[in-house]
């Protein structure tokens, strides 16, 4: 019961996951930001231990092996990579990298900032990165994030695919070497990354857990390291009690700009209902997403006046068509449904303006994203919708489905009302009991109804909203959407020589996707966070984590 079922537990991986939290929220649009403060009390910052809600990590805290939020938020505290993301705008910025430049169309040269050290005092050098990336990519090391290195030269020599799939009895062959040939050390503070094809967008990815540096002690004795993780971030590991709590302390020799102000933080692993009660009673300092019992009837607003807020996170709400069902093969029908939904009205009436309609396949705070790729197809236009609908030859009622335990009923019913009114055809909401059930049906490609499908991206880049979902064979392409033009455009964007050009191509790919509309983008989905009375300077990062470097105690 540690993790709320509606949050489907650690099952919500940072890696592109379905968002099941549904928030019907009120808010303080236009009023002052309750999280902003005038700063804390320096003495209390030193003495008070800030407690933050968390869930037990699913794996040891090795960054390249951590893909779920519970472990992810701790890994993010313990490590700082070459880049990180601005906690407010989500823009990537240099962190441990002094410079990160394209020196050839297919080659990046990284220069590291000097004097950075791991928590054990050893310096962070080019080798810390090269060794860590080699370790992560080398197949037999069995790291979850191995595929993040696929574009680097020599990946095929360190990672061999499984000849008969995961279920088959054959194991992948032992790779030729355990070093990526694309990584070359120039000096202790400089190294080059060579790609098989130009991959300008790579730079923006390197703030993600997969790309963290590792100290020498990890390679010498991984088991000992796992018992006492050593990172290079603003926080160092102190102690943990399994399934209960994990303590970290400010690393005073941290050279990054996001140096923490409070001295001690404790991640508390508990049930989210209990955590909510704790925050209310000031027993816990921070909860990133309040549970449904607090969302119903906007209870959180009265429970926690001035200490709760809806924050944007890298997440969007959408509904998808099971394209493998021939019923849904008409693009006119899919456009008709999209144009029948009045996004403005629903976000205003049900979410009281706390969510904004989106007109593309990602959200505003994501670098490289430009709203509007969807164009007229995402504008409310009942007449045009009806016209397209009549052309599509659809017969029978329209059914929308979702898990019943995530608070999605209200908006789906409202959307259904729009559809019914505009298209003159019966539309019903058919809830399924649990998220797991619907996930199973989606995985087995057995969906027959239009279904809800939200996204939470793992690093802020428009690339992460498109490639996994809309590319043929993409890891999360759940409705088997396939358009060679889109694939070509996305491939071109991946191989673009500059990020600007990449962003332009991604936008063009998005326009192509909107023409097919395999899924209908609706609005962004913020997260409602709550904190105790003693915290000030509170804000949530786009990754749905408390900004630990900003928070203070008053």
């Amino acid at each position, binding site marked *: 019961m540690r993790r709320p079922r509606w949050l489907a537990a650690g099952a919500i991986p940072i890696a592109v996951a379905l968002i099941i939290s549904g928030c019907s929220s009120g808010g303080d649009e236009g009023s002052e930001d309750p999280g902003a403060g005038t700063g804390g009390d320096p003495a209390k910052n030193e003495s008070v231990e800030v407690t933050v809600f968390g869930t037990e990590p699913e794996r040891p805290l090795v960054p390249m092996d951590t893909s779920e939020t519970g472990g992810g938020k701790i890994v993010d505290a313990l490590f700082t990579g070459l880049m990180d993301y601005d906690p407010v705008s989500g823009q990537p910025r240099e962190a441990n990298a002094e410079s990160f430049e394209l020196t050839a169309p297919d080659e990046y040269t990284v220069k590291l900032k000097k004097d950075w050290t791991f928590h054990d005092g050893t310096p962070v050098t080019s080798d810390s990165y090269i060794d860590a990336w080699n370790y992560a990519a080398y197949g037999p090391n069995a790291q979850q994030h191995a595929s993040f290195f696929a574009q680097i030269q020599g990946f095929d020599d360190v990672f061999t695919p499984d000849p008969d799939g995961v279920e088959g009895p054959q194991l992948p062959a032992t790779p030729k070497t355990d070093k990526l040939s694309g990584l070359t050390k120039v000096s202790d503070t400089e190294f080059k990354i060579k790609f098989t094809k130009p991959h300008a967008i790579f730079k923006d990815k390197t703030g993600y857990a997969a790309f963290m540096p590792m100290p020498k002690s990890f390679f010498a004795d991984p088991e000992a390291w796992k018992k006492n993780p050593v990172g290079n971030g603003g926080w160092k590991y102190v102690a943990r009690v399994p399934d209960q709590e994990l303590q970290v302390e400010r690393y005073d020799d941290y050279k990054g700009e996001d140096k923490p102000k409070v001295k001690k933080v404790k991640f508390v692993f508990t049930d989210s209902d209990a955590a909510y*009660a704790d925050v209310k009673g000031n027993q816990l300092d921070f909860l990133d997403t309040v549970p449904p019992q607090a969302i119903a009837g906007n209870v959180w607003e009265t429970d926690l006046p001035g200490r709760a807020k809806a924050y944007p996170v890298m997440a969007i709400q959408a509904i998808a068509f099971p394209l493998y069902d021939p019923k849904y093969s008409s693009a006119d029908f899919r456009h008709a449904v999209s144009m029948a939904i009045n996004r403005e009205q629903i976000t205003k009436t049900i979410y009281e303006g706390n969510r904004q309609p989106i007109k593309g396949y990602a959200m505003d705070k994501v670098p490289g994203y430009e709203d509007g790729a969807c164009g007229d197809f995402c504008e409310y236009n009942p007449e045009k919708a009806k016209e397209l609908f009549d052309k599509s030859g659809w017969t029978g009622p329209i059914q929308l489905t979702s898990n019943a335990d995530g608070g999605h009923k209200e908006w789906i019913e409202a959307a259904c009302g729009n559809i019914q009114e505009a298209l003159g055809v019966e539309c019903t909401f058919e809830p399924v009991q649990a998220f797991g059930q619907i996930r199973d049906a989606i995985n087995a490609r057995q969906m027959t109804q239009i279904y809800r499908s939200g996204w939470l991206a793992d690093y802020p880049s428009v690339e992460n909203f498109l490639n996994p979902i809309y590319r043929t064979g993409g890891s999360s392409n759940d409705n088997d959407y396939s358009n060679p033009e889109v694939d070509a455009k996305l491939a071109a964007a991946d191989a673009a020589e500059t990020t600007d050009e990449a962003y332009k191509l991604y936008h063009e790919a998005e326009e192509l996707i909107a023409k097919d509309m395999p899924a209908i983008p609706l609005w962004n989905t913020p997260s409602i966070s709550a904190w105790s009375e003693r915290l000030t300077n509170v804000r949530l990062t786009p990754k749905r984590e408390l900004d630990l470097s900003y928070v203070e105690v008053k």
Partner: protein
Amino acid sequence: MGRYVLRRMLQLIPVFIGATFLIYFLVWAVPGDPFTGMCGERPCPPQFVAAMNDKYSLNDNIVIQYVKYMSALLTGDFGQTYSEQSIGELISLAAPVSLRLAVVAVVIEAVIGITAGILTGLRGRGFLDNLVLVSTLFLIAIPTFVTGFVIQIVLGFQLEILTPTVSSKATWSELIIPGFVLGSLSMAYVSRLTRASIAENRRADYMRTALAKGQPKRRIVGVHLLRNSAIPVITFLGTDIGNLMGGAIVTEGIFGIHGVGRLVFDAIIDKQGAIVTGVVVLLVLVFLLVNLFIDLMYAVLDPRIRYD
């Protein structure tokens, strides 16, 4: 007596092996691989899945897995979780908390339930009887999570006379309220069971005899009536200790208690078979020992029952 206890102890062995094997088998009979879904919406690298299956010997035949597990268990090694934490440590942290919670709950339900049962059983119909009848009906009708949330909101937030949740230390005093919530349903059963048992035994032959011998009322009720009426109640309370230890998931969730129920529930969701079996091993032991103890109590309570 000694031979009976020995025989019962020997019987524990096959029951223990059977129960643990069944649980081990059932945990892995649930469809789904614990590792393919671990990397979120991305498929996990095959090397990762293979390495994990190998590490936790999930490729072996279920019987071999079980034998491996049990032989490690005999040396005191409960194995590791997928996050490579010691399961023995997890259990040793959670079990005392759950045991304390269960003991608090049983004590509360025994004291309140038996008292209410005796009073109503002796007096028969009247205001008190109706009051207990209605309030127990009320307790039986409300699900635990309602009782839990209501008490938490009223006492914790509105009256502010206690902290709404239990700290990770889970001291005895902190567990009184959760214990009350947890025991409230059983409390209703205990009071009804006691009442029925007393009302029935009140008319028993031995009661009339004792009365005819002119014994004082206190002795008749305290020794003759209560002792004989206690058997069904003790049986109920005994099995309840085990139930409350493993089945307090809802209460543990509301009050944020790090107990065995939450541990096993999460483990089932994550398919951490080793944790589930480890906890069940413990619960089976508790059940078996408590049952043995209760059977021995029968002989103490009812002179007609003899072992050997």
